[in-house]
């Protein structure tokens, strides 16, 4: 009742909490979108273990033999492909990406393994300078069917001949694929990459770890999704330390501000509490009333803040992220966790100050008008 009749005092309190929660939630979700985007870009590597020789290009069959002998989980397929480098855009600049060139039959298996739902356009012809890319890549690099992507004069996205995009794969995952014959014809050093697929895709991670232990000391490079996850989390560890500090300071500042605001707001009501106590309300009843009011304000502000943050993030997603195929989690659970200390801290401060006020409180002083 007090809250409703005193909207002028209540709304600013709710608003401060709303803004704080909105700020924290948005900042964290946006920052999280960086590693999330990177993980999304390289998500395709969780479907297989990649192996390439570091020193001797003829070693690939030996490695494959080692890695398919007594594996801990059943292996379904091994694909030998060729690869070259290209660049994609990310929120934090350009990132390397692999163009994988494989035979037509292997492409079919690979696309199915990656959960592709078909292709618009067509597959590359054997030996032709042609490639297919997935929808995310097309959006990210602003490529359409018929565009030329790899070029002889582009050192970042190099190929001996201009390579045309002839098909766009319907898939969420990021992929750049070409035909093995063309790569074999144009690459100066023939290095086969082996892609090893476990039968049960959910056991791929387990296999990857086993493979890493087994290949220790060999001159081979392994590519596995969990490595990318580890790298990206290491890369951002310092960033997150800074964020924790900033958010911590923000929570302290906002809590202090809110505590003071709430204190002023409750002081204005001492007359009310004195009167109510004089005419027969207990301190507990009044404390309970204040507590419920504070809870409504704080939890209300928190919810409105979360809703507002979601709005901001949805706008950011539509305007910034989706057009570039960057990933943003508008319901980021970590961001949500970061907002939790705000209402809790404010509630503690509010209750603390009110309790202190009530402890030595004489209703007579109010009734006698010695206060006000």
């Amino acid at each position, binding site marked *: 009742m*007090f809250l409703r009749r005193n909207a002028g005092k209540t709304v600013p309190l709710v608003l401060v909490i709303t803004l704080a929660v909105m700020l924290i939630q948005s900042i964290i979700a946006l920052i999280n979108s960086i590693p999330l985007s990177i993980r999304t870009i390289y998500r395709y590597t969780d479907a297989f273990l990649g192996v390439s020789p570091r020193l001797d290009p003829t070693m690939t069959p030996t490695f494959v033999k080692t890695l398919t002998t007594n594996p801990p989980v059943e292996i379904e397929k091994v694909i030998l492909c060729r690869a070259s480098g290209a660049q994609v855009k990310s929120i934090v600049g350009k990132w390397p990406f692999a163009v994988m060139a494989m035979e037509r039959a292997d492409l079919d298996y690979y696309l199915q393994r990656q959960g592709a739902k078909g292709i618009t356009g067509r597959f590359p012809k054997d030996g032709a300078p042609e490639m297919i890319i997935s929808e995310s890549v097309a959006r990210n690099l602003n490529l359409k069917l018929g565009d030329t992507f790899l070029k002889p004069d582009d050192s970042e996205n190099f190929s001996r001949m201009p390579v045309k995009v002839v098909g766009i794969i319907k898939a969420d995952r990021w992929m750049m694929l070409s035909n093995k014959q063309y790569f074999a014809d144009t690459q100066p050093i023939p290095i086969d990459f082996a892609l090893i697929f476990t039968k049960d895709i959910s056991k791929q991670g387990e296999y990857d770890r086993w493979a890493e232990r087994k290949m220790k000391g060999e001159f081979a490079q392994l590519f596995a999704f969990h490595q990318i996850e580890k790298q990206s989390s290491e890369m951002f560890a310092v960033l997150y330390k800074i964020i924790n500090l900033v958010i911590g300071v923000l929570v302290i500042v906002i809590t202090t501000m809110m505590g003071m605001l709430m204190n002023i707001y409750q002081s204005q009501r001492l007359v009310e509490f004195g009167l*109510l106590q004089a005419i*027969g309300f207990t301190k507990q009843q009044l404390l309970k009333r204040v507590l419920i009011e504070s809870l409504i304000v704080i939890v209300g502000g928190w919810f409105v803040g979360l809703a507002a943050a979601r709005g901001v993030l949805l706008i950011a997603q539509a305007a910034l992220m989706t057009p570039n195929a960057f990933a943003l989690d508008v319901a980021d659970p970590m961001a949500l966790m970061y907002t939790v200390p705000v209402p809790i801290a404010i509630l503690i401060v509010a209750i603390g100050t009110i309790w202190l006020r009530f402890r030595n409180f004489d209703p007579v002083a109010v*009734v006698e*008008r010695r206060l006000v």
Partner: protein
Amino acid sequence: MIQATNVSLVYNDHEKKVFACNDVTLEVKPGEFLGILGPSGSGKSSLLYLLSGLKNPSSGTIHHHGKDLQSLNDQQRAELRKKHFGFVFQQPFLLGYLTALENILAISPASKQRAEDLLAELGLRDKLHRLPHELSGGERQRVCVARALINQPEVIFADEPTAALDHTNGEQVVQLLNQHRGQGSLVMVTHDPTMLASSDRVERMTEGTLVGR
């Protein structure tokens, strides 16, 4: 019904002791209108707070129906004030965000009909839903009177209920209190003898003690 025996209330005012009440013995009888008359600073308000359990005496005892008020805890005393006592203070204290009617229901949420009737009898029929700042001083004090009466208390304590009002309004408030108290007693503190014309008994107070004994 309320029996004060040798009660004193001492304030420590810069080392010096101030006896706001000094060895007062007094009984409030059922159904009576007791006036307490005295000049400013004589300790009338203090006596009222002692009788109603808002303050604890420094010495002496207050019994309500034979029960020592000091033996009650905060909650029991609040309950006593809410259910059995009514209060009208010098200033017409109302909750500013509640209407006249809601101010009364705040004490006694179940008595809507009685609250409306009471306010009507006190001449506020058209003003039930006004906020306090939309009422005059006299009207506000009448809302306070209705609030004091709502639970049909055993005793109404009125501390200078007329002080903030002009003489006519003041007399009206006293009369309303007297008319509507039913079986309840009325203990009224004032420095204005004309306000006690309808009282059954008047005690005079100076410097913390009852005189004329």
